[in-house]
C-alpha cells in the first residue's frame, strides 16, 4: 500500500538512476576491475593482481605526470584565485565601467578550452607567434622564447594559459562575496580612520575567507582534471614535460592499447580526486545548496 502510493516517485526517479548506474556506476566498477588485468583490447584479458600498480610505482613517466598535474593544479589555482581576488577587489570599489569589466573578464571563460589551446599555440609559436613578435617589436628580443616548444618553459606556458582563461571565474564568485558584506561594516571601518589596504586586510579578507577557501578548492579539483588544454597545446610534450595524469591515461589506453595499465592510472586519479572532493563536500556541507 505504502509502496503503491510511493510508486510514482520511484518511476520519476528511475530514468536518472538507470542512466547514472549504466553510464557512471557500471564503467566505474569496470575501471576498478580492469586495473587488475593486463589487456590490449583484443586477446582475452589476463589477471595480474597488483602488477599494474607495481609497474606504475616504477614508471618515471607516471611520476612525472603526477608531478606535473600537481604543479599545474597548485599554480593555476594560485594564479586564477589570486588574480580573481585582485580584480574583484578593484571592481568592488565601484570603478567606472564595472559592468564592462565584469563582462570582459568573464569572456575567456566562455571559450571552449580546445579553442583557447589552439589559439595560444599560435600565440606562442616561435617565429611568427604573437608573443615573440610583440617582444621583438618593443625591444625585448632577449626575452623571446620557444615557450611550449621547450622543455623548460612548456609547463609554465600552459599554466599561464589556464590562468588567462579562468581567472574570471573566481572573480565573479569573490565579487559576489564582497558585495554581500554589509555596507555599515565598511562605514564603521572608514570612521576608524584606517587605510584602504588595512581595510582589505582586516575587514574584507576575513569576511570572504570561507568563499576564498571554497573557490580555491574547487579550482584545484577542476585543475587536477586538466586534459583539453594540454592535449591540444602539447600532447604532453615536448619530451613528456607537460604530461599530466589525464593525457598520460589517454596515451596509455588509446595510443598504446595498455587498457589494464591505463585503468590503474584511472584508479589513482579517482582516488586522489574523489578524496579531495569528498573531503570538501563534508567540510562545506554542500547538501544545503542555495539557489
Amino acid at each position, binding site marked *: 500500500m505504502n509502496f503503491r502510493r*510511493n510508486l510514482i*516517485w520511484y518511476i*520519476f*526517479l528511475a*530514468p*536518472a*538512476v538507470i*542512466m*547514472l548506474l549504466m*553510464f*557512471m556506476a557500471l*564503467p*566505474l566498477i*569496470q*575501471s576498478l576491475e580492469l586495473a587488475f588485468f593486463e589487456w590490449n583490447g583484443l586477446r582475452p584479458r589476463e589477471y595480474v593482481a597488483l602488477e599494474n600498480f607495481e609497474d606504475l610505482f616504477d614508471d618515471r613517466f607516471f611520476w612525472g605526470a603526477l608531478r606535473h598535474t600537481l604543479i599545474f593544479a597548485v599554480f593555476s589555482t594560485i594564479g586564477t584565485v589570486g588574480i580573481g581576488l585582485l580584480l574583484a577587489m578593484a*571592481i568592488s570599489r565601484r*570603478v567606472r565601467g564595472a559592468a564592462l*569589466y*565584469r563582462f570582459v*573578464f*568573464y*569572456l575567456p571563460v*566562455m*571559450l*571552449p*578550452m*580546445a*579553442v583557447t*589551446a*589552439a*589559439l595560444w*599555440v*599560435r600565440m606562442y609559436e616561435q*617565429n*611568427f607567434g*604573437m608573443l615573440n613578435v610583440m617582444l621583438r617589436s618593443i625591444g625585448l628580443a632577449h626575452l623571446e622564447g620557444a615557450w611550449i616548444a621547450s622543455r623548460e618553459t612548456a609547463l609554465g606556458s600552459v599554466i599561464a594559459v589556464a590562468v*588567462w582563461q579562468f581567472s*574570471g*571565474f573566481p572573480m565573479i*564568485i569573490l565579487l*559576489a562575496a564582497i558585495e554581500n558584506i554589509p555596507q555599515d561594516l565598511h562605514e564603521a571601518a*572608514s570612521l576608524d580612520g584606517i*587605510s584602504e589596504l588595512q581595510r582589505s586586510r582586516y575587514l574584507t579578507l576575513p569576511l570572504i575567507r570561507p568563499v576564498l577557501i571554497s573557490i580555491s578548492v574547487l579550482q584545484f579539483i577542476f585543475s*587536477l582534471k586538466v586534459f*583539453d588544454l594540454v592535449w*591540444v597545446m602539447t600532447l604532453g610534450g615536448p619530451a613528456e614535460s607537460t604530461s599530466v595524469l*589525464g593525457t598520460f591515461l*589517454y596515451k596509455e589506453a*588509446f595510443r598504446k592499447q595498455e*587498457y589494464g595499465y591505463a585503468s590503474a592510472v*584511472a584508479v589513482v*586519479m*579517482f582516488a586522489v580526486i*574523489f578524496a579531495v*572532493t*569528498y573531503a570538501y563536500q563534508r567540510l562545506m556541507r*554542500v*547538501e544545503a*545548496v*542555495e539557489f
Partner: protein
Amino acid sequence: MKRIPGALVTVLLVAWAIVQVYPILFMFITSVKSDKQILNAPFALPDPLLLDNYAIVWAGDRVAQPFSTFFINSFMITLGSLAILLFVAGLAGYSLARGRFPGNAATQQGFLLTLAVPVHVLIIPMYFFMGDLGLRNSHIGMMLVYATLGLPFTIILMRAYFLSFPHELEESAMLDGCSRFGAFIRVVVPVSRGAIASMAIINISWIWSELLFALVLLDQPQVRTLPLAVAGYRPVSMAAESVVGQQFAIMTLTALPLFVFYFFFQQQIRKGMTAGALR
C-alpha cells in the same frame, strides 16, 4: 580614509582587460585575413577583409569534412543532450523534493557522491561498452553520455528549486483529474520555465566544448563535433603551411555561438556559474 589612487586601479584593470580581450580580438581579425597578411603583418587590420577562409572551411576543402557537418553535429548533440538532461533531471529533482518515500535521502547522498567522480575514470570501460551497445560514433550515444554527466548537479539544483515551488498548483490540477505526471507536465513545467532555462544555461557551454569523450567515442570524421575539428587542426610551424586563416576561421566559428549566447544571457550565466560551481 587613505585610499589607493583610483588612477592606479584603473591602469591595472585596463591592462588586464587588454590581456584578456586582445587574444580573442586577434582570433577574429586573423580569421578574416589572407595567409600572406597573417605572416607579413600580424598586427595589422585585415586589408582587404576576406571571408574566403570561412567559405573554404564551411564547404570543406582541406579538412576531410566540411565544417558545416561538424557544426550540425555539435548543434544536434548539444540540443539532444540538453533535452534528455532537463527532462530526466526535472523528474528526478521533483521526485526528491516532493516524494516522502524510503530511500529519498540515500538517493540524494548517492547523487552527491557521483559529483566527486572524475570523468577520466569512466573513459576506458565506456569506450568498449558503448562499442558493444553500438553507441560509439553515434549521436544518441553522445547525448546519453553528456546528459548523464550533467545529471548529478542538475538534479541537486532542480530539487532545491522544487522545494520552494508551491504545492497548491499541482494539487488543484490533480483534483481536476490530472495524474501526477500530467500535473508535472501541464502545470509544474510551464510555471518553471525560468528555472529550467537557467539549468540549460549552466549546461550548454560545457556540452558544446566537451573534448575528452568526443575524442574517445567519435572516431569517424562524419560524426565529429567542433572541439575535435579545432583540436585536429594542429600544424606545428607557421611558415610551412598555408591554413592558418582557415584554422582561425574554425576557432572563431566554434567560439562564436557561445559568445553570442553569453552576450544575451550574461547575467544568468554568471549567476548560474556561481550556483553550478559545486560541479
